[in-house]
C-alpha cells in the first residue's frame, strides 16, 4: 500500500497585486508521476517553488512523507528541483556539480560515498563520459542530464521538474523524455512534472493536474479527464487536438450551435439550469465529431479552413458560424483548403459548460448520470 508522498492543502500565494495561487490542494502518491499541466502564468512554477520552499506561501500547508514542512527552509526539505534554466554551476566540473548537494553542510557525506553516488547517477543518465568536463563545454541536452543527475544524487523523496525540456530541440526532448521514464521505472522516484505541453506531460504522467489562473481545475488520469472534464479550460488544454468549444444559444427548449443548422433538443443534453435566451458553451472531443467528405443525413455542410499533416494522420480545421472544430482524419483523405466537407455533432457526446464561468454543468439531480 503506497503512502502519500506529498500533500498540499489550501496553498495561496500573492505577488503584489497578482494572486498567483488561489487555494491549491493536491496529493501525490509514492512512486507516481504527477503532471502539472497549464499555460504560462497559470501558477505551475509558483506551485513548485512553494513546494520546494523557495517561496513562503501566504496560506496553506505542505506535508512531505507525512511530516509537515511548510515552514522549513528549502535546504532541509528532501526535495530536488530541476528548473528550466538548469542552473549548473559554471566554475565546477560536471562531477563536482553532481556531487555538490552531497557536500553541502546539511548533507555531509564522506568522499567514498559521494563518489559512489555520483557515478551511479551519472551512469543512470548516461553522462559518465562527461564527468571531467566543465559545464560550459557540454551541449544543452547533456547539461539537462547533468541537472537531473544532480537532483537525483541525493535520492530525494520528491523530485520536481519545471518545464525541463522546453529549451531543447525535438529529438533531444524525445531522448530525455525516454530517459526520464526509464529512470522513473527503475528507481520508483516520485515526480511532479510541470509543463504547458500536453503531449510531453501525458507521455510521462500517470495522473494529470490541470492548473489555470492559480487554481487546480481537475486532477485525474487522462481517461478520467476525457470521460468527465470539469471545466472548459481543461478541454482546451488536454488533447491533441484539444476539445472543440462551440458557442450556442438556448431558446425554447432547443440549443442552437452558431453556424450549425441542426438544433438540439434541450432534453438530449440532460443538463439542468439553462436559461432561456442565454448562451452556453458546448464541448465535444474531436474523436466524437463525425466528419465526412460526402453529404450524409444529419451531417451539416461546412468548408475546410486549413489542413495539418501530422505524419501518421492529418488534422483538419473546419469553421462554421463563429465556431471552429479541429479533427484528426486518416491521411488517405485527400483534402485541400476550401473543399466542402460535412460535420455531425452528437448531443449524446456533448459536455455543457457555463458561458461565463466555464465550469461544467452537470446533469440535474433528477436525471441519471452519463453512461
Amino acid at each position, binding site marked *: 500500500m503506497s503512502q502519500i508522498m506529498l500533500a498540499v492543502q489550501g496553498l495561496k500565494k500573492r505577488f503584489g497585486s497578482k494572486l498567483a495561487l488561489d487555494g491549491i490542494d493536491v496529493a501525490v502518491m*509514492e*512512486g507516481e508521476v504527477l503532471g502539472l499541466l497549464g499555460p504560462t502564468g497559470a501558477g505551475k512554477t509558483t506551485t513548485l517553488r512553494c513546494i520546494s520552499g523557495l517561496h513562503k506561501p501566504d496560506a496553506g500547508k505542505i506535508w512531505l512523507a507525512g511530516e509537515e514542512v511548510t515552514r522549513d527552509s528549502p*535546504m*532541509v526539505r528532501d526535495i530536488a528541483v530541476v528548473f528550466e534554466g538548469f542552473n549548473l554551476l559554471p566554475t565546477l566540473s560536471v562531477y563536482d556539480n553532481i556531487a555538490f548537494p552531497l557536500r553541502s553542510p546539511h548533507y*555531509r557525506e564522506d568522499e567514498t560515498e559521494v563518489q559512489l553516488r555520483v557515478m551511479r547517477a551519472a551512469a543512470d543518465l548516461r553522462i559518465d563520459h562527461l564527468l571531467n568536463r566543465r559545464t560550459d563545454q557540454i551541449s544543452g541536452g547533456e547539461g539537462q542530464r547533468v541537472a537531473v543527475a544532480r537532483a537525483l544524487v541525493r535520492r530525494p*523523496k520528491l523530485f520536481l521538474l519545471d518545464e525541463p525540456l522546453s529549451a531543447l530541440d525535438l529529438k533531444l526532448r524525445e531522448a530525455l523524455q525516454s530517459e526520464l521514464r526509464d529512470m522513473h521505472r527503475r*528507481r*520508483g522516484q516520485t515526480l511532479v512534472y510541470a509543463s504547458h505541453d500536453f503531449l510531453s506531460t501525458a507521455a510521462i504522467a500517470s495522473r494529470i493536474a490541470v492548473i489555470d489562473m492559480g487554481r487546480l481545475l481537475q486532477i485525474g488520469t487522462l481517461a478520467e479527464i476525457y470521460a468527465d472534464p470539469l471545466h472548459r479550460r481543461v478541454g482546451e488544454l488536454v488533447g491533441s487536438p484539444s476539445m472543440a468549444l462551440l458557442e450556442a444559444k438556448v431558446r425554447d427548449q432547443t440549443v442552437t450551435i452558431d453556424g450549425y443548422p441542426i438544433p438540439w433538443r434541450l432534453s438530449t443534453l440532460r443538463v439542468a439550469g439553462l436559461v432561456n435566451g442565454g448562451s452556453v458553451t458546448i464541448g465535444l472531443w474531436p474523436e466524437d465529431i463525425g466528419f465526412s467528405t460526402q453529404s450524409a443525413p444529419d451531417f451539416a455542410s461546412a468548408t475546410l479552413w486549413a489542413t495539418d499533416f501530422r505524419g501518421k494522420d492529418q488534422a483538419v480545421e473546419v469553421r462554421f458560424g463563429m465556431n471552429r472544430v479541429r479533427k484528426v482524419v486518416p491521411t488517405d483523405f485527400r483534402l485541400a483548403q476550401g473543399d466542402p466537407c460535412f460535420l455531425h455533432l452528437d448531443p449524446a457526446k456533448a459536455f455543457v459548460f457555463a458561458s461565463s464561468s466555464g465550469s461544467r454543468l452537470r446533469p440535474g439531480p433528477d436525471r441519471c448520470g452519463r453512461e
Partner: protein
Amino acid sequence: MSIPQDETARVKRAPKQARTLPDSWLCGLFLAPSGLILALMVFYPFFSLIYYSTLQFSMMRPRIEPVDVGLGNYVDLLNDNEIWQRFAFTGKFVLATVLIQFTIGLAVAYAFQRNFKGRDFLFTLALLPMMLCPIVVGFLWRYMFNSEWGVVNWLVSLVGIAKIDWLGRSENALWAVAVADAWTWTPFVILLATAAFRGIPKDIKESAEIDGASPMFTFFRVTLPMSLPILMIALLLRLIDAFKQYDLFLAMTGGGPASETQTAAFALGKIAFGYFHTGEASALAVILLIVIMGLSMIFVRYLTRLSNRV
C-alpha cells in the same frame, strides 16, 4: 519500489531553521558608506547653500554679522536687468553650441555606420578633443580666434572676407565660444549616437532594406526615432554642461567686453569670488539650479514616455 532504507538513513537531519540577517538590513549595511559620503559632501553643502541664500553677508568678512533678509536676495536678483541679460546670453549660447554639436555629431555618426577602411582610426582621432582640459581648449581657441594672427581669420581671408573681430564683440564671441565648446564635446555626441545606432537590432535594419527604403529614409524614419532615448540623454547632458560653461569664457573673453559675454555661471563666479557677496551668490546658484532642474524634469518625463514604447 521504495527508496532503499540504508541510503535515506545516512542523510543527517539538519536543524529546522537557518538564521540569516533580513535582506533589508543587509541592504542598509551596504549602502551606509556611500550614504555617509553623500550626506557629508552633498547634502550638507546643499542645505548650507539654501541657508546662505537667505542671508546677506560676505565670507571674506566673517566679523560682520550676517543679515537675515529672507527672500530679499532673490527679489534683488530677479529685479536686476543685468541678471536677465546674463540668462538671455546663456540661453543663446546653449542653443548655439548644442545645435552645432548635434548637427555635426549625428552626421558623423551616420557616416560611421558603414565600415570603411580606417574607420576605427578616424573614430579614435575624433574622440581626442574630449580628453583635453577645458582651460587648455579655451586658450587654444583664443589664439586661433585672435583677430590679428589667428588661424580662423586667415582661413576666412582666403575666401575673401575681411578680418572678423571674434572675441571682442559679443555677437561673434557667442559663436566663437560655441564653436570651441562644440569642438570639445561633439565627440561625446558622436560616441552616444554611434552606440545608439549600433544598438538597433540588425533585423530592423535588414527589414528596412528589404522594404525598399533608401538609406536616408531609413535614417530619418527608423534609426533616429529608435535612437531617441539615448539621444535625449545626450541632449540633456549637453544642455546642462552648456549652462555651466565657465572655463572657456574665462580663457577666451574673460566675460568681456564689459560683462557682455558673461553667462549666468560666469556672473555667479564673479559675484561669489570677485565681489564676495556670498549670500547673493548663493541665491543666484539656487536660481540656476531650479532652471536646470526644471529643464531636466521635462526631459525625463518625455524620456519615460518614450521608453514605455520602445
